[in-house]
C-alpha cells in the first residue's frame, strides 16, 4: 500500500538536488548549517503542523492560518504591555490568543462553508480581509480604545503600535529551557518536546471519532452527510483547530525571533509554511507529520543557502533572495497544478478502464457486467 508515488516525491527530490548544489557554494560550515536548521525546525514546525487538520478534512491548504498568527500577535502585544515576561508571558499570551483564534476560526469556517469547492482562494482572500481588521485594531484602536501603557510599544502619536515590538523579555526563553548543546549545536529541547507532544496529539486525533468524521467529510461530503455526520460543523471545527494551533505556533515562532514585526510578521507566514509543507512531499489533499519535518529541513536549507550561493555565483546577493522567494511560490504553484491535474487524471482513468472492460467483453455479448 505504501508505494512511493514518483510524482508525489518529485518535489522533495528536486529540493534535495537544489540543496545539494547550493550547500557547497554557500560556504557555510556544516555546524552553522545544522545549527540554523535546528533553530528553524523549532521555530516553524509547530506552525506547519497546524496545516494538517484542514487537509484531512478536505479543505485544502489553509491559507487562513494567518488568522491564528494575528490572534497570537495581538495577545503578545497585550502581554508585552502588561509586562508579563518570560515563559509565564507566553503561557498567558497563549491563553489570550485561543479565544480570539476560536472566534476567527468560526468566522473563517462559516465563510468557507459558503464557498465549497474554492476553499483555498477564499481562505487566501480571508487572510487579507482579516489583516485589514487586524490593522484597524492594532493601528487605531490600540492606545485609543484598548489601553496601552508603555510608550516603548506605542507610536509617539498616542495610539497605534510601533512597527516593531520588542520581545526581549521572552526572547528564546522557551528554547533555552532545558537546552542542550551537542557539538556546538544548540538544541531547544523543550520546544522540541512541545512539538513532539503536538505530533502525538495529531496522531491521537486521527483515531478519535471526530478525526474519523473529518476524514470522511474530506473524502465525500455527501456520503458523510447521508451517514448523519454534521458536515458543516465538522468543517468549521477543523478550521478552528487549525487557527488555534497556528496561534500557538506563532507564539513559539515569535519567542524565537525575539521581536514582532507588527504589520508584516503574519503576512508571509502562511505562504512560507505552506511552501515548506509542500516541499516535504505533501499535496493539497494528503499530508503527514513526516512531510512537515522533511519540509522544514529541505525548505529551510534552501532558504539559508540560496542567497549565499546566489551571491557566490552572480556576485549579487539579491539574486539569491529573489530566488528563494521565487522557489517558494513556484513550489506552491506546481503543487496546486499537480493536485488539479491529478483530479482530472483520476476521472479519465476511470472511464478508460470502463472502456477496456467493455471492449474485451463486447464481442462475447450476452453476459451481465
Amino acid at each position, binding site marked *: 500500500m505504501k508505494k512511493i508515488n514518483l510524482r508525489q516525491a518529485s518535489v522533495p527530490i528536486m529540493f534535495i538536488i537544489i540543496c545539494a548544489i547550493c550547500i557547497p557554494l554557500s560556504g557555510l560550515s556544516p555546524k552553522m548549517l545544522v545549527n540554523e536548521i535546528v533553530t528553524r525546525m523549532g521555530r516553524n514546525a509547530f506552525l506547519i503542523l497546524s496545516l494538517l487538520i484542514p487537509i484531512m478534512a478536505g479543505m485544502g491548504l489553509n491559507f487562513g492560518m494567518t488568522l491564528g498568527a494575528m490572534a497570537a500577535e495581538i495577545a503578545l502585544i497585550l502581554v508585552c504591555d502588561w509586562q508579563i515576561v518570560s515563559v509565564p508571558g507566553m503561557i498567558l499570551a497563549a491563553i489570550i490568543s485561543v479565544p480570539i483564534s476560536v472566534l476567527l476560526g468560526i468566522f473563517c469556517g462559516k465563510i468557507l462553508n459558503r464557498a465549497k469547492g474554492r476553499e483555498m482562494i477564499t481562505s*487566501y482572500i480571508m487572510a487579507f480581509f482579516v489583516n*485589514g481588521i487586524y490593522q*484597524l485594531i492594532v493601528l487605531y484602536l490600540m492606545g485609543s480604545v484598548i489601553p496601552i501603557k508603555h510608550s516603548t510599544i506605542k507610536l509617539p502619536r498616542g495610539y497605534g503600535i510601533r512597527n516593531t515590538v520588542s520581545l526581549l523579555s521572552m526572547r528564546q526563553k522557551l528554547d533555552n529551557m532545558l537546552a542542550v548543546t551537542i557539538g556546538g549545536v544548540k538544541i531547544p529541547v523543550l520546544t522540541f518536546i512541545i512539538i513532539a507532544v503536538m505530533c502525538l496529539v495529531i496522531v491521537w486525533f486521527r483515531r478519535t471519532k471526530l478525526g474519523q468524521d473529518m476524514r470522511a467529510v474530506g473524502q465525500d461530503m455527501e456520503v458523510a452527510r447521508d451517514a448523519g455526520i454534521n458536515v458543516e460543523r465538522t468543517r468549521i471545527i477543523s478550521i478552528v483547530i487549525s487557527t488555534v494551533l497556528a496561534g500557538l505556533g506563532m507564539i513559539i515562532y515569535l519567542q524565537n525571533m525575539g521581536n514582532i514585526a507588527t504589520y508584516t510578521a503574519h503576512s508571509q507566514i502562511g505562504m512560507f509554511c505552506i511552501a515548506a509543507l509542500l516541499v516535504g512531499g505533501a499535496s493539497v489533499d494528503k499530508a503527514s507529520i513526516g512531510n512537515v519535518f522533511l519540509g522544514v529541513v529541505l525548505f529551510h536549507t534552501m532558504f539559508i543557502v540560496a542567497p549565499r550561493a546566489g551571491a557566490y555565483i552572480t556576485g*549579487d546577493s539579491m539574486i539569491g533572495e529573489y530566488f528563494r*522567494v*521565487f522557489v517558494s511560490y*513556484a513550489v506552491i504553484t506546481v503543487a*496546486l*497544478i499537480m493536485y488539479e491535474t491529478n483530479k482530472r487524471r483520476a476521472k479519465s482513468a476511470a472511464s478508460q478502464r470502463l472502456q477496456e472492460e467493455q471492449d474485451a467483453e463486447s464481442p462475447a455479448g450476452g453476459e451481465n457486467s
Partner: protein
Amino acid sequence: MEESITFKDRIKDSVAEFGLPRLIITGFLVLLLIMAPFVGADLPTQISNIINRFSWNGILVLAMVPMVHSGCGLNFGLPLGIISGLLGATMSIELGFTGAMSFVAAILIATPFALVFGMLYGWLLNKIKGGEMMIATYVGFSSVSLMCMMWLVLPYSSPNMVWGLAGKGLRTTISLEGYFDQALAGIAQINIGNISIPTGTLLFFALLAFAIWAFLHTKTGTAMTAVGSNPAFAKAAGVNVDRIRMLSVVMSTWLAAVGILVYEQGFGFIQLYMAPFYMALPAVSAILIGGASVNKASIMNVIVGTILFQGIVTMTPTVMNNMIHMDMSEVIRIIASMGMILFALTRKTEGSR
C-alpha cells in the same frame, strides 16, 4: 438598472441583486462626497483626482472582462500581463525610443510577450478547469518573483534605468520623464480651474472598452459568453471550449499589459520588482464593486467599479483625516475591497467556479 419603473421595486431589486457589501461601499462613497465640502476638502480637486485615477486604472480593470466571460473566473493572474507591459516599457526605453513614440513602441513590444505568456497561461488554465483562481494567483506570484531575478540579470544598459553604481540591474523605480510620461493624458488635456481632465487617456480607455464591447457582440464573443455561462451547452453546440478560453486568457493578458503602460504614463514612473505583486487585487475588487460576479461582467461594471473604487481610495484619506484626524484610508480600503471579493466568492454561482 437604468430604466425607472417604480422606485420602491427598483430599490428592492437592486438591493437583492447588488448585495449588501456593494451597497455599503456605494453608500460610503456618497457619504464621503457629501461630507467633503463640510470638512473643508476641495471637491473639484477630489473629482479631478478620481477622474485621473480612473483613467490610470480603467484598462487594468477592463482586463478582467474576457476571462470572467469565458468562465475562467477572476483573473488573479493579472501580474503576468503586467510583466509583459513592463518588459515592453523597459525595452522601449532601452531601444532608445523617447517621447510619445516610446509609448507606441512599448505597446508594440509588449504585445508579443503578452501573446506568448497568455497562451502558456491559457494552456495551463485549460488543464486545470475548476481550480483557475487559486492557480492564477500563484502563477502571478511565481512570474513576478521570477522576473525579480530577471530585472537584475537581463542585459539592460540604459543609464536612466540601471543602478548608477553597479551599472547593471534595473532600478526599482524608473522615471518616465522624457519618455512616455503623460503620453496619453497630455493629448487634448482640459484644465478648468482645479479640474484637469486627461482626455487622451479617457479616449484610449473608451476605445478599448468599445472594442471589447464590440467583440462580445461578434460570433466569437457570443461563444465566449456561452462558454462562461455553460461550457457543456457550448460544447454541445459545437464550440471549441478550450480554444475560446485560451483566446479570453490571451485577451486578458494583453489588456493587462496595455493597462499597466497606461497606468505608468499617468503615474510617471515604472515600478519593477515586487510592485506588480498585488496589483490584481484592486482590479478584482473594483470590477466586483462595479456589480460583476465571478462569472458575469460587463463594461458598465468596469466603469462603475473603477469610479467607486478609486473614489474611495482618493476620498477617504482627505475626508477621514479632516473629520477624525486619523488616516484610516488604507485600512478601510483593504477591508472594503477584500470584503467585496470574499462576498463574491461565497455567492452561489452556477456553471463555472
